[in-house]
């Protein structure tokens, strides 16, 4: 499919993103507040439990924790929804012909929009906790881009697997729970042994979440090496997803439609 043919589907992408966003109760203020409730509650629980212990290691634990939670939440929600996309949209696939990955991308994008809104709520909170705006914040979109593209790539791969295997949802449930603990969402890396620290640092999720924290809280500019690495990883993830999608498109259709 050439670029010229692909172009009209930008419109479809935006349309579907809008629809996904509106439908998940987030078109209204009340719906949005509900989605805020989950991270807020987890935040309160973890904060009360760990402030005394982990507060020793990090200056602004509240800010550290909430940033970790919000972005982890985005990744988790987007991948879980993205994974089930083809099954959820089987009728759409039977009735219209368009590049299937758009459904996954728009699902992720819709979650991203609500995360962006959550961040908008977060900023005044950070201010309250003593975090001052700084020039590093201008690089936040770059981090967002890394996170978005890696999440899209992972979701696409998961969706392709889930179309073939019925138990993918459960498997991902287990893996993502493990990932939650293997990513420094509520604890800092420096409480770990050096070996474990090095291992966990290799995870792109760790890189991104910590990068965002550095940027938002400490006002640090990212290490260009890490940026290149993440850009490469994002491209790899998306590229692999798109390649496999093209390769297995008809097999997926057979599984989903028949």
């Amino acid at each position, binding site marked *: 499919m050439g670029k010229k043919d692909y172009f009209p589907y930008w419109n479809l992408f935006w*349309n*579907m993103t809008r629809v996904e966003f509106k439908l998940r109760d987030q078109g209204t203020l009340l719906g949005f507040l509900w989605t805020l409730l989950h991270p807020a509650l987890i935040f309160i629980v973890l904060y009360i439990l760990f402030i005394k212990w982990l507060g020793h290691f990090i200056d602004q634990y509240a800010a550290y924790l909430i940033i970790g939670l919000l972005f982890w939440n985005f990744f988790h929600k987007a991948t879980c929804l993205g994974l089930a996309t083809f099954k959820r949209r089987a009728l759409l*696939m039977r*009735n219209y*012909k368009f590049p299937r990955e758009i459904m996954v991308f728009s699902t992720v994008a819709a979650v991203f929009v609500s995360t962006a809104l959550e961040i908008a709520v977060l900023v005044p909170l950070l201010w309250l906790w003593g975090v001052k705006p700084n020039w590093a914040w201008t690089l936040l979109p770059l981090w967002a881009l890394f996170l978005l593209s890696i999440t899209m790539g992972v979701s696409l791969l998961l969706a392709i697997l889930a179309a073939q295997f019925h*138990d993918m949802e459960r498997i991902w449930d287990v893996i993502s729970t493990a990932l939650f603990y293997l990513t420094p969402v509520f604890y800092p890396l420096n409480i770990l042994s050096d070996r474990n620290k090095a291992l966990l640092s290799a995870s792109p999720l760790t890189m991104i979440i910590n990068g965002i924290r550095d940027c938002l809280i400490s006002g640090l500019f990212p290490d260009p090496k890490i940026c290149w690495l993440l850009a490469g990883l994002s491209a790899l993830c998306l590229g692999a997803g798109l390649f496999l999608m093209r390769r297995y498109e008809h097999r997926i259709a057979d599984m989903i439609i028949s």
Partner: protein
Amino acid sequence: MHSPKNSGIAVQVENLGKSFLIGAENRHPTLLGRLNRWVRGTSPQKILWALQEINFELRRGEILGVIGANGAGKSTLLLLIAQILSPSEGQVRAYGRTSPFFQLSAGLQPELTVLENFSLCAALLGIRPAAFKKNLDGIIAFSGLKDYLYAKYNELSTGLAARLPFSTAIHADLDIILVDEMLAVGDQAFQSKCKRSFLDLRAQGKTIIIVSHNLDMIRELCPTTLYLKNGGASYLGDSEEAVQLYIRDMGIASNKRAPADVISEHLALRQKVAACWQGWFRRQEPLAISDSFISSLWVAITSLTAPSLAGRLKPGDEIITTPFNYPGVAGVLKSYGLVPVFIDVDPRTFNMNEERLKSALGERTRAVLLAHLAGSCAPIDRIAQLCRSQGLWLIELNNSVADKYQERPLGCFGDVSACGLMPSLADPHAWGLVLAREASFGTLFAELLKTGYGDEIRVLDHRHDDPLIQTLGRRPWPTMQGLDECQRACESSTNSPSAIIRAHKEYQGFFARYPSEFMIPEPPPEAEIFTPYFSVLVRETATFSVPRILNHLYLNKIKAYRYFDGHGWLAGHFTQSGVRNSDFKHSLSLHRQMLLFPIEQVRDAGNNVFNSMADLLEKRSPIDC
């Protein structure tokens, strides 16, 4: 993809086959299950061929129909041509933009507005935003959803909802259009609009493939049809032939015929039945068949008010009749502004009496309406003579076509006559006859029966989807079943009905034994009564009340009915109109005290009827309370 130069080919299907893996485990394949199979080296899957060895070529501007039973592979074929599924063997090439019209509404969002869904649907069909904006007015106009743009999509009915994606798809500038039972949900008007637009699209060089169970539509739209059977091409060629083969294979009677067949068959049967009745009445004068007693009366009265008729009935004109009549009669008269003038019945004949008629004649009297109901009969010849001498129209009304007077069937005496019979009280396939003495009434009848609707296809097609047209179709045309009933009634009237006469005699003989309890009608000696009911009047002074008798009969499982209790005349609706003598003693008692016994009951139930009545009358009944 572009078509090979100058070939004009739009779709090319070569040795096309599609298989699916099925098997218990494969219904919900799991990663763990797959690992398990790798370890064990087994494969529980079976191959199911949904489609095999399909070959055809379509050029631009061609329409192909696809028919076949459920599971024959029709939808799979469309999915393959749309390239949503890929072939397992062979090739399918589609030169141009395509998208299948399946349940296009499937992808739309019930919670969003209609307008938002138009936009989403356009995006799904790959319409560019600029093109969508340009076409939006046209799309909305085609869909007829202009008033619903801001309603939620799920607030639309199924039929309306289906219009949205269909209208959008029609405007999507697709080169190859694949339609799968899409038209099934739209109403008649929208369906014909869609059919027209298919023909327009074909004229523009678009290629259309229609999958449908609607064989009429396939025949109408597609010159060529592919008949799929168990995944193979059973026949490809002329649509009529394909449909016939399919019908034969399905073992279904071809009861869905083209409207033209239905009309010609209906007209032929109508003529045949009319000829049968003309033979019965032994005359060639106009005779029309309508669908019920009351619609035949309606045709009769309307023809007498026709502007082209000399001496026609005008509003304010009086018509003399008896109150012992059908409830609807006075209503029909009133609806033309005619004034019913009621005269009481003769207690002997239960019908109109010449002397009373004479005394009721007035300045504005223009017609006499003579009703022969419930086995009663008036001295028709004398009344007809009076009408002729006074220049009055004589309208005959009877619910027993077999009755005779002076050896001529009732209905032969009036200037216009309406006859009718319902096979049973609840049967919708009733029929009625309208007769006239003057040949000129023939054209009046024909015009009236055509109705304002004009379109015979619509009027005659009783299986029409539109309930409004169905209703109109039943009025006044009789259904095919109605015509059949009419035919049967003609045949049974022609056969000597000696059994009915015998039954009447038996009833007469029985009730004559209790002169203090009952009165039975005494028709003039010239009359022969073949009414399927025997009527008897319970005297006001009788031992038992009418409800009491009915109750007793009911408990003994004997059928008997009362006459029209709910008559508008009884309720005083018509008492003000042209009443010149308010003494309706006999008519009132007929309405209140009359019982009707079905004639066939004597034949079927033997002496039970009489024994049961005798039990009551001689107070031997065990349930006498």
